[in-house]
């Protein structure tokens, strides 16, 4: 289990903390949805888990501090960031080789992993093309492929389907489900409620750096049925989300 306990964080010069004593329990295996409006602290939490920011509080995996686990097994955690975090002037295969090599993969193992993730993300046909020339959907798939190079057992996915067409989104969601089926723990942030409902087993709804609700998706919807009536064809998670975070616009 990935356990986040009492994590607080404030950016330099920021008036308010972005995260306030935030605690979530992410069960091992399966897909955990992290939901929240803009500015809720989702990306900040992902950045802390990925080791990009230092925060107060503790993060453990099966009782082992995450930092220690990553020191021992650097490949145990993978990140698929919201941005297209690769080099547009490099080809797809050059990007995959580079990100594999900086994580210590080499020789036959690197070739095998590059082929494997390219097949998984279905980008084999565009491997010789520069990443900057790809469509939005192909870029998202390359972004995902890079995150899978070291076969991490924990994968952080920060809005991995933003800006893609329905076909690419459907493919990405199927791929994410397949990854969870292999026993990985996936932490998934998104603004798309129907996506989260479709693929997540557990969710946490956060706002202003605090957890408002968390638990198994089905239980949350059942427990909150009183305030959020479940109707045929309704987007029940979206109703719960709007109920908890209010309808006021966010920056």
């Amino acid at each position, binding site marked *: 289990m990935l356990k986040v306990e009492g994590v607080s964080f404030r950016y330099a010069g920021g008036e308010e903390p972005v995260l306030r004593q935030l605690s979530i329990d992410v069960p091992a295996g399966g897909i955990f949805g992290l939901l929240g409006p803009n500015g809720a602290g989702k990306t900040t939490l992902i950045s802390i888990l990925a080791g990009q920011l230092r925060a107060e509080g503790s993060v453990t995996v099966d009782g082992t501090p995450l930092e220690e686990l990553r020191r021992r097994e650097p490949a145990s*955690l993978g990140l698929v960031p919201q941005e297209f975090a690769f080099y547009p002037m*490099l080809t797809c295969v050059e990007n995959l080789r580079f990100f594999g090599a900086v994580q210590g993969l080499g020789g036959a193992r690197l070739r095998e992993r590059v082929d494997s993730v390219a097949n998984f993300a279905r980008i084999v046909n565009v491997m010789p093309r520069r990443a900057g020339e790809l469509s939005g959907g192909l870029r998202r798939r390359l972004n995902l492929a890079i995150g899978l190079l070291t076969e991490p057992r924990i994968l952080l996915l920060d809005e991995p389907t933003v800006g893609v067409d329905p076909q690419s989104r459907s493919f990405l969601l199927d791929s994410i489900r397949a990854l969870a089926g292999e026993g990985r723990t996936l932490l998934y942030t998104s603004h798309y409620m129907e996506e989260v409902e479709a693929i997540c087993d557990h969710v946490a709804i956060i706002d202003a750096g605090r957890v408002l609700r968390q638990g198994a998706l089905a239980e949350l919807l059942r427990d909150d049925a009183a305030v959020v009536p479940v109707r045929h064809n309704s987007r029940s998670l979206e109703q719960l989300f709007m109920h908890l975070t209010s309808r006021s616009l966010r920056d």
Partner: protein
Amino acid sequence: MLPLLALWVKEWLALSRDVHGLAVLFVMPAVFIVIMSLALSDVFRDGSTRQVSFAVVGADAARLVDGLSGEGFKATPSPASESAAREMVRKGSLALVLVVPDGFGADPSVKLKVLADPTLPPVQIATFLQRLQGATLGVKSSSAPLTLEVVGNPGGGKPSSVQQNVPAWLIFGMFFVVLPISALFIIERRDGTLARLVSQRVPFPMLLAGKVGPFFVINLAQAVLMLAAGRFLVPWLGGESLALPARWDLLAAVAACTSLAAIGWGLLVAVGSRTLEQATVIGGVGNILAAALGGIMVPRFVMPESMQAWAGLSPMAWALDAFHAVILRQGSAADIAAPCAKLLALAAALLAAAFWLHQRRRAS
């Protein structure tokens, strides 16, 4: 080693596909070298003068000093011997030395010898020789025969415009790696690539080292090509040819130290700037100011003395001193030690500052 090699290959691939960035690094200094060498060739033949120090060594020294002083020439205490004087000229601490052999005045065959700093404008050497002819008439009935030796200049004669301009604009071009370094780094940060690499536990010092290797090679390639431009392109266009030094190892050492300082500057600007525009302004303007102050755009010998003192603050002046020590003065390792040590210390300080700034931002 594999991650560092991967970083170098990545940087090299990215750079090789940035045609505009490469043009700035290679074409700009080459164009400056050609234009400035041709445009300033007359200045170096007949141009501006500065107040220079001279000394007289040997017999009758006192009698000649008065006649030589004034109008741009200032007498300094005499060195103990001709060899000591020669060493001072070679190091650039004394511009002109008149060596008066024993028997001067009595024996008409005795020749005076003038040792000259190769960075002196030739017109100033000529003026000194004219004054010397006048001064010797007070000692002898006819002007004395004399020999002129430009100490350390491989051409043996006057320093040319190209000898001043090639190292100057080479240094200027080398420091312009600040633009591609900072541009690539800021794009990496903006696109989240840097964050991804940090999340993959690639240590930040290794990320910095990943930039140093490829840009070091680029800087050395610049040095080779700019020296070739001075040697072959400028004379082909009607200018003088660059006389190359005998000590290539020292030249390589100076280029390496200059490169490390330039890369350190580039990395600090890259880490410290929040946007590409900021990096372009800070890096570009910083380079131009350092060049203007450091004798790159305006040779230091035409600056007033107070400005020459300020020029010593510019790292480009340190690099230019070191290049001149090798190219103009045929200096030894000891002659480039001080400017090279300053460049290396600066490089270390800039790298440490870049690392500290990154850690500070990461913590917040």
